[in-house]
């Protein structure tokens, strides 16, 4: 009797031990699995950081070089002395300033070629001057007339421009044109003071906004020259 009892207890003890062993191996397996996953995750993350770090360093370097060139041109314009001593001083100063402020000049630039943006901006200036002349004539005609038919109003319109630099270009173009003044930009809504109905209508037509959007390649605007460019690319692809 006692022998069977003893056997049973030993068997029970063995079973408990067996269960404990199975638990332990299971836990170990999951632990190994977790560590493997975590290592892989960490390696992936490190790779991403390395990649984005390289990318960021590259853009930083490009910004640095671009800022240095622009600032050096500005320095030569100011200085007017082209001997070696002053040019060296200028180069050192511009490189120092560009190193300190490389993130200011080209912040929030969207994808796109800066040279195209610069060329389009330069092409925009004559059109703007023409608009300023026309608006001047309009305002003079308002002022000279005896009755002075002004009709001041605040025009409010939602813009499709996305970056701050394009909004600022549009706002300053509007302010430069006589008869209209940009009062505020709040959440992409322009508040513009216009002096007469004609000026307000021109503003609402949005010609200037379209042109600014074209400069900065925003708002998915299709223009004739863009279509022509695309047609040329398709032709070369077909040939």
């Amino acid at each position, binding site marked *: 009797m006692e022998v069977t009892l003893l056997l049973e207890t030993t068997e029970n003890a063995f079973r408990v031990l067996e269960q404990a062993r199975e638990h332990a191996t299971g836990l170990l397996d999951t632990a190994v699995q977790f560590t493997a996953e975590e290592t892989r995750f960490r390696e992936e993350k490190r790779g991403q950081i390395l990649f984005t770090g390289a990318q960021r360093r590259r853009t930083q370097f490009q910004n640095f070089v671009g800022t240095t060139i622009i600032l050096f041109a500005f*320095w030569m314009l100011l200085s007017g002395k082209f001997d070696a001593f002053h040019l060296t001083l200028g180069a050192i100063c511009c490189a120092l300033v560009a190193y300190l402020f490389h993130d200011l000049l080209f912040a929030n630039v969207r994808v796109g070629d800066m040279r195209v943006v610069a060329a389009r901006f330069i092409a925009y200036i004559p059109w703007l001057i023409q608009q300023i002349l026309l608006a001047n004539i309009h305002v003079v005609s308002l002022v000279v007339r005896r009755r002075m038919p002004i009709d001041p109003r605040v025009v409010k319109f939602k813009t499709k421009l996305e970056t701050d630099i394009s*909004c600022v270009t549009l706002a300053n173009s509007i302010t430069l044109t006589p008869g209209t003044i940009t009062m505020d930009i709040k959440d992409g809504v322009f508040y513009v003071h216009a002096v007469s109905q004609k000026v307000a209508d021109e503003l609402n037509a949005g010609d200037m906004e379209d042109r600014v959007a074209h400069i900065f390649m925003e708002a998915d605007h299709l223009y004739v020259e863009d279509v022509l460019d695309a047609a040329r690319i398709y032709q070369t692809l077909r040939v």
Partner: protein
Amino acid sequence: MIRESDDVIVKAVARLLMPFIVVYALYVVMHGHYSPGGGFQGGVILAASFVLLGVSHGLGKTRRRMSEKVAGVISSIGVLIYGGIGALCLILGGNYLHYGKLSKLLHVTPAEARSLGILGVEIGVALAVMAVMCTVFFAIFTVGESPEDDRSVE
């Protein structure tokens, strides 16, 4: 404490103008012995650029470029450059700030030594003025902050 301005135009124009203002200030400093301007004026323009950044982008972003501690160090360095060049002239046997005596040290003619010496002195003056102006700006514009916060940070 100045918060970041919420005006898009002010922020963007300040950001674009900042490097040009700094280069203009450096031009005023470096051409001080040829044209109007010099260390003090250039230093003030340099400080004005930081004030512009502080007013438009808030003090937090300005502190990242120029903190109070850095301003203190730079002002000391500026005074050290000024006093050092003056004392160097004394050691070389001239009067205080007698730049002609620097010609032996720099291996140039006394006239060129005078030109270089006054350039160095102007750089020192500009650094000191810029840093002190920034310190004044920070001191004025952090007046509203409660001193308890500062104590708890320390």
